[in-house]
């Protein structure tokens, strides 16, 4: 009943129903993140800065797990073991062909650093070797560190954005689910196929959404990207 903050499960942390859609997970995360900002006035005198920091970190973990389908399924299984979640019944009707969590998809992630490197090394200033450890291969839900934009990125090109997205364990489809931006446009953004993108005004609306979904600073990413867009379109 009454729970220690450390014991709240991810759904309780984000204050959502265990059946919440990806979109709802994202909205809850976006809101809760603001509540537990370091200087949030609503926390005054209740939580110490250390407690707030721990809460924030757990909120990040919760988001990264629940936003990612295989990870979420795995987590739900753990919760069911702990009897914190009821067994799903109506699910069976909606998904007649039940399949175990697609653990096999993981190896795809492992290839990523190699793909990413040339682009990230492609910067004007000399960069230290990519310091981020290679993405975990294991199925164990290892909490990822709260992840500032990788240090090697100095400009948010389409490729850099894609790298950040993949690093967060999100597919284009996940992001489309969160932002309601179509997968096609998300793809064009990443590939910098500027001509195929809708008018600049729409793009300007899409970018901050996209940035937030993958945990980037919306203003910076939008600014960077539009600068490249404008330069290319002028030519």
């Amino acid at each position, binding site marked *: 009943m*009454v*729970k220690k903050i450390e014991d709240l499960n991810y759904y309780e942390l984000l204050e959502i129903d265990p059946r919440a859609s990806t979109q709802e997970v994202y909205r809850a995360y976006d809101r809760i993140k603001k509540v537990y900002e370091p200087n949030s*006035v*609503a926390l*005054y*005198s*209740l*939580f110490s800065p250390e407690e707030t920091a721990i809460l924030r970190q757990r909120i990040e973990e919760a988001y990264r797990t629940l936003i990612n389908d295989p990870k979420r399924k795995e987590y739900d299984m753990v919760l069911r073991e702990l009897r914190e979640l009821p067994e799903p019944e109506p699910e069976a009707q909606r998904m007649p062909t039940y399949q175990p969590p697609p653990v096999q998809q993981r190896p795809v992630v492992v290839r990523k650093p190699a793909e990413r490197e040339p682009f990230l090394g492609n910067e004007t200033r000399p960069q230290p070797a990519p310091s981020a450890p290679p993405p975990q291969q294991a199925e164990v839900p290892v909490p990822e560190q709260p992840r500032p934009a990788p240090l090697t990125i100095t400009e948010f090109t389409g490729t850099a954005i894609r790298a950040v997205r993949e690093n967060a364990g999100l597919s284009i489809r996940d992001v489309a689910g969160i932002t309601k931006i179509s997968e096609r446009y998300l793809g064009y953004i990443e590939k910098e196929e500027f001509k195929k993108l809708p008018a600049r005004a729409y793009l300007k609306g899409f970018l901050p959404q996209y940035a937030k979904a993958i945990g980037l600073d919306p203003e910076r990413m939008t600014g960077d990207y539009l600068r490249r867009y404008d330069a290319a379109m002028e030519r």
Partner: protein
Amino acid sequence: MIELQDALRRKEIWAVGGGKGGIGKSLITGNIGISLARLKKKVLLVDADLGGANLHTTLGIGVPEMTLSDFLSRRVENIQDVIIQSEIKNLSLISGAQDFLDAANPNFSQKTRLLRHLETVDADYILLDLGAGTSYNILDFFLFSDQGILVVLPEPTAIENAYRFIKSAFYRRFKKVVTHQGIKDLIDAAMDQKNTMGIRTPYDLIERVKLMEREVGEILELEITKFRPKLIVNQVRTKGDIQIGFSIKSACNKYFGINLEYLGYVEYDDSVWQSIRSKRPLAVEYPYSRPARCIERIVHNLLRKEQLTLSTLY
């Protein structure tokens, strides 16, 4: 007899508190009362601010002849004798103690006598305007009522006081349900935020109580779920200020484990002091002002047992 029981069951007592002074408790109590009266409910407002009564001012009533202190000190025997009809249909008032210093601290038998008499009053709603602070009297009225409403401003000091109020209120409630003296002492000690026993949150306290007597700990857990104070954010100027109510709700849920209901907010507006200056109630003088309409919305939420939803922000 059956009729009388019906009448008793129907009556609801709402208390408005908040810990800090000058945050709009009286303004909100008075104007909630007017809104209810306009909905054809019989309303009795009670200025239970035994230190600095001023509810009559927000209603535009001058210093009354008969006040609560006359009743508490038994200068009059019947509660009817201190009830004043207001100019608004269906709305009456018991004005606060003005002169009677001891009234600021009525003893247990005075309080029960007051509550017993209030139960007999012919009204649909009795609204208590609690004073500032977290004295036992204020907490007791708050806990006794059917709906305990907290007023807060979107600023750190008021929020800090609201949290202290919540904590004091339910630790007092805890103390009322336990008989074990050792546990009572433990609760007292836990009230001190800097206690040396490592009890920071209600959760810590309950864990400790469970070690002493498991069942009592479980009873306290149940008490937490029953404690559902309501929240009003007053003097709201921005969307961010409205958001603070949701944030307080979240923080209360995570820290205290309680389900605070966010009833609504009242916008900051010059019409408030203009109405006070003209010695007329806000809802009468400026019925279409933004704060007056905010208070109406709060009344609707109270009556329908609803609360603010996040969609108001989008």
